[in-house]
């Protein structure tokens, strides 16, 4: 079920009413409703893959219970690795099987040995990378004794399948989300209103920005051989805003929806395109995944504590795996490696934590230095996104070489330039609002709050009309991150 679909617009109020009016007296019943609603939400796409979620839930719950009573370190390790193997096994089969098989065959072909093996026609279950990492965090935290394993399988199932963030995150830590299922929830008016505002802004990001940009990014990337360097550059910029609007929009809707049900999820995006360097960008982009990798991979590997070679090794590992997490294609690996190359100079010169606070905090405009930093980071990011979006490495390289040719200095030309100009105007408006709200959890968190109700509602209505206007004629685009 897509967040910006009629189905969800009907589903959400029904679940909300049942949750607060029918099951509100009983915590278990509320959790059970969440599990049922989440399974309907997921099954709407393909009910067959519900079995994977159920299996993962049962395995990790059982392993958690066993870890609670098991003292022997060896046995505890076996239990941990069983959970890791099951979860990563699913991910490996559904997401990476064909990739490894094809590359294995290609590698042998290079050595002159022909291997006959046919790839499988595997459907990638939506959101598998997200809920796999979420359940893994539970087992690892229980293993490390950071978290008391739950005895309540319904609460655990609700934690694994919680519909607002099931298919595209934020990837919640068990330490944050699971205890919330054990606590009695009381309806909080202010939180619910904030939730609605965040959903509204998420929809603006998705429908107005991401779907608008998608039309041009897809057209230009899919026919890149037909366009000049300047058009390809514009295509990359469109994709840069598409992926941000798409993914952070989803996160906003997920967090906003959770707030309606009395849950607090972690912030997943913190205005990454206002970052002054790549290290700051990675503290602001897909925060739930970056911190997951930091806590469960980077730090166990030694983090940045060792010598230079260790730092370089760990940085590459973390970025390449992060790239590979996004998809079974060399383009994602190249995207990860490129970001590692961007990041390393900052790490090695101990400049990776220079910019912790949001840019130009407390003032309207950035300094010239900050502006230059933001522009440089943005350009580097746009360049890296080309690898992320390209069909394969050679497509990315030819795309970049066309950008770097003389045709970069020509005027961009493609069909429906008027529509593209309209989208660019929306991007400018969007950036302005994001800039004004950059010290908040989401851009319109405080916007118009001090104003009269009439003004506030005029602003909401303008945004809603904008969403409706941009929805018309736009085919319902899936969220990009569903495929990861």
């Amino acid at each position, binding site marked *: 079920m897509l967040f910006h679909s009629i189905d969800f617009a009907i589903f959400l109020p029904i679940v909300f009413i049942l949750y607060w009016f029918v099951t509100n007296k009983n915590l278990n019943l509320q959790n059970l409703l969440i599990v049922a609603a989440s399974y309907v939400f997921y099954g709407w796409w393909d009910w067959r893959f519900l079995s994977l979620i159920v299996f993962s839930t049962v395995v990790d719950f059982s392993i958690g219970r066993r870890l609670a009573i098991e003292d022997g370190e060896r046995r505890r390790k076996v239990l941990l690795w069983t959970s890791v193997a099951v979860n990563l096994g699913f991910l490996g089969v559904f997401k990476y099987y064909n990739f490894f098989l094809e590359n294995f065959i290609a590698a042998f072909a290079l050595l002159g040995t022909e291997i006959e093996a046919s790839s499988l026609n595997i459907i990638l279950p939506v959101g598998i990378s997200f809920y796999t990492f979420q359940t893994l965090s539970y087992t690892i935290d229980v293993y490390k004794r950071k978290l008391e394993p739950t005895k309540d399988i319904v609460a655990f199932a609700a934690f694994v399948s919680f519909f607002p963030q099931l298919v595209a995150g934020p990837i919640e830590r068990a330490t944050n989300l699971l205890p919330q299922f054990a606590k009695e929830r009381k309806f909080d*008016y202010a939180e619910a*209103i904030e939730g*609605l505002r965040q959903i509204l802004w998420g929809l603006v990001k998705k429908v107005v920005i991401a779907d608008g940009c998608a039309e041009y990014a897809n057209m230009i990337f899919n026919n890149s051989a037909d366009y000049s360097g300047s058009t390809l550059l514009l295509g990359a910029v469109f994709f840069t805003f598409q992926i941000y609007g798409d993914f952070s929009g989803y996160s906003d809707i997920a967090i906003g929806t959770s707030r309606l049900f009395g849950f607090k999820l972690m912030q997943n995006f913190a205005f990454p395109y206002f970052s002054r360097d790549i290290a700051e960008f990675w503290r602001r982009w897909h925060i739930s995944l970056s911190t997951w990798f930091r806590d469960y991979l980077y730090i166990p590997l030694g983090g940045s504590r060792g010598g230079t070679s260790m730092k370089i090794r760990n940085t590459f590992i973390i970025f390449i795996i992060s790239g590979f997490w996004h998809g079974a294609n060399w383009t994602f690996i190249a995207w990860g490696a490129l970001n590692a190359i961007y990041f390393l100079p900052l790490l090695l010169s101990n400049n990776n934590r220079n910019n912790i606070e949001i840019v130009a905090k407390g003032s309207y405009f950035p300094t010239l230095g900050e502006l230059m930093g933001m522009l440089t980071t943005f350009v580097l990011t746009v360049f890296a996104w080309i690898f992320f979006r390209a069909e394969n490495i050679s497509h990315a390289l030819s795309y970049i070489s066309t950008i770097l040719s003389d045709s970069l200095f020509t005027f961009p030309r493609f069909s429906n330039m008027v529509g593209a100009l309209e989208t660019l105007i929306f991007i400018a408006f969007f950036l302005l609002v994001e800039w004004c709200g950059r010290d908040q959890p989401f851009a319109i968190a405080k916007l118009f709050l001090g104003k009269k109700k009439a003004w506030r*509602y005029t602003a*909401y*209505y303008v945004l809603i009309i904008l969403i*409706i206007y941009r929805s*018309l*004629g*736009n085919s319902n685009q899936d969220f990009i991150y569903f495929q990861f």
Partner: protein
Amino acid sequence: MTKFIKEAILFAIPILLFFAITVGTFFLFDPFKILNEYEVFNNSIVSYNEDYIATERFLKNKTQYNSFILGSSRAGCGFRVSDWEKKLGNTAQVFSFAASNESIFGIWGKVRLLDEENAPIDHVLLVIDTDITMKRTVNSNGHIFIKHPRVSGESETAFISEYLKDYIFTGFFVRYLDYKMFEEERSYMKGFLNFAHKSLEEQYIPFNINQREARILDDEAAYYQENTFYDRPAEAVSAKSFINSKSIGFMKDIKAIFDKHQTNYKIVISPLYDQKKIHELDLKAIQEIFAKENVFDYSGKNAITDDKHNYYETSHYRIGIGQQIINRIYDDLSKE
């Protein structure tokens, strides 16, 4: 909570208003003519769903027919009912059951419907297009292509909501209501509203073919100068293979119904302008199911496909082509 619900409703006023207008006008005006019963589908500015109209027409007059033309709009344009009736003899009552972008799923649904309705299926002319027929094995999307619920076997609610979705989310309602209020043709309505239908004759003519044929007959040279026909490659090209286990299953079901009714059927592979020869695997599968002697392949390079004057545009062949093919099939058979 009450305060929140009031606030949420206030918040949603534009959305509620939007849906009240769009859903309200959809049910009030029935722009696609699917909510009420109609005798005449002409004089509408909305492009028809030929599948829906044909199915409705068949269901109203099902006792009249015993011979059926099945296929896409190419079959609907190219094969005239009267041409085939002449060949079949006095007892034949032919019904053209063609639909835009027809798939094997749609053909299967129609044959099943004929069987369910106990229609005598004495003769069938099944026209297969190498580029579309076997490509889709599920129901089509969109208001022009979605199958009649009796054909698809899906619910009427799903059928109507597909129309409602198109009406709202493609922005169709804006064009439709604009025209309804001001009765002025504007450029942004192109592709949504079909003003050519306004002047159609009283009797329903599938696929509006008479207008196109008349334009050619009026001034052939001008017609072929106005319409662009791309160049085909000089060498022979094979079409993609689309047949899979699902389409084979559909064909076997169709064949079983034909056997049950002792149907005299002919399978024609369309002479498409692209001159792509049907993939050998697809042809083999079709021949295996329907028997070689019943399959007539006109795809690829041949006298029909070589001449662009046999086409209305690069997709549809002209009425006379169907007649030529029917003549060849029946003349060859009579020689045997």
